[in-house]
């Protein structure tokens, strides 16, 4: 079987894979950044006292979590232009990924926040911090600490989900594999290489998360 496996062609396609890898990394990176932002805001709204804001955040989180990412991606890609909102493929991909992950992150962060003892909120309140200050200086630093494993899991999901943007013809890692598979008719080599690169990203993220978590544990002096 292995004698049919062409490392030579993989080598030929390496520049394309590296371009794809780079695109996957930066598209995911930007999406993660916005997803975190959206997630924290949505979570903040969901936990706020305003009934209307709470409702809005709830609808957003529910509707994202109850529909497939691919459907959301197609909605933005095919649907937005008909509403005269014109984004290019990459922007559409980032929008869909960030909005999708944001909803999951909102729930992860919420679980982290409700795990913080109520005494922390009380102390911060008693010492005059307002809602945003309590979140910023007391609750979120602690909540994010305990949610690192779950957040990392979500980041990894996002990196893998970013392969879907190949369907709206963005050249990223999976698309590079598709090109090799169709141009040279070598799907095994093409998608094996793709998988290997995703594995690489996974290990880097995992390493970063362990490093971050150890640092936090050290800071809390346990």
């Amino acid at each position, binding site marked *: 079987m292995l004698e049919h496996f062409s490392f030579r062609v993989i080598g030929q396609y390496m520049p394309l894979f590296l371009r794809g890898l780079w695109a996957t990394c930066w598209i995911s990176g930007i999406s993660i950044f916005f997803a975190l932002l959206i997630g924290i805001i949505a979570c903040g709204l969901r936990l706020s006292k305003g009934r209307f804001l709470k409702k809005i955040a709830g609808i957003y989180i529910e509707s994202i979590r109850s529909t497939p990412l691919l459907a959301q991606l197609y909605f933005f890609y095919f649907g937005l232009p008909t509403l005269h909102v014109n984004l290019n493929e990459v922007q559409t991909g980032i929008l869909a990924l960030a909005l999708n992950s944001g909803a999951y992150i909102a729930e992860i962060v919420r679980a982290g926040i409700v795990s913080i003892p109520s*005494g*922390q909120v009380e102390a911060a309140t*008693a*010492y*005059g*911090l307002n809602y945003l*200050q309590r979140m910023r200086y*007391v609750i979120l630093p602690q909540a994010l600490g305990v949610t690192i494993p779950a957040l990392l899991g979500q980041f990894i999901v996002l990196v893998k989900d970013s392969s879907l943007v190949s369907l709206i013809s963005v050249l990223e890692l999976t698309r590079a594999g598709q090109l090799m598979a169709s141009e040279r008719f070598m799907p095994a080599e093409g998608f094996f290489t793709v998988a290997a690169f995703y594995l690489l990203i996974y290990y880097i993220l995992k390493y970063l998360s362990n490093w971050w978590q150890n640092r936090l544990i050290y800071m809390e*002096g346990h």
Partner: protein
Amino acid sequence: MIIFKNVNKWFGSLHVLKDINLHIHPGEVVVVCGPSGSGKSTLIRCINQLEPIQKGEIIVDGMEVNKRSTNLTKLRSEIGFVFQQFNLYPHLTVLENVVLSPIKVKKVPRKEAEANALRLLERVGIPDKANDYPSQLSGGQCQRVAIARGLAMNPKVMLFDEPTSALDPEMIKEVLDVMVELAREGMTMIVVTHEMGFARQVADRVFFMDAGQIVESNTPDEFFENPRNERTREFLSKIITHN
């Protein structure tokens, strides 16, 4: 300084404060005792609006606590609060715990706030722990940091909610010593506690609460030697035989 006028509070259908009237003067030290569930903690938690009240009026330093127009941030920055479980911020160092509110709420420059925090840590006897995290401290040290955190806002009143109840016996004294010193320096204090030695030593008045009411209010001497209320006598006989 602190005035309660016919204050009533309910938790759902549970009537936890019943027609409380009291007047605490600047510099006064008041100890509140009573059986658990009698409303002691709720009483002081209403003062900085950690708990809202449903009827009556609370006035702190001329500010009506439950009026919408009252600036709660300003009110709270005049009231130091010490919790039974310390509630220090575990992700911040001791020094950062103390300076957080002065910097963020009172907008004190960081340098000034830190210098003041170090002075306060000196005063509560733990200047060498400034850069440690709360998890590295003993309970008594944590509670002293919490007192320093309260004092850092330069408050007019300090409220203590059972400050020694979560401590190991050998650490109670170090916390009480700090509180006694504070009382002698003229701080207005309301202390929910069963430390009767502390009450005798520095309290100007002792309140006894039962079922949401202040049933007895007297000087410590009168309170301990000559309790007028049946419930007070019963309560004192229980805790004093155990001391």
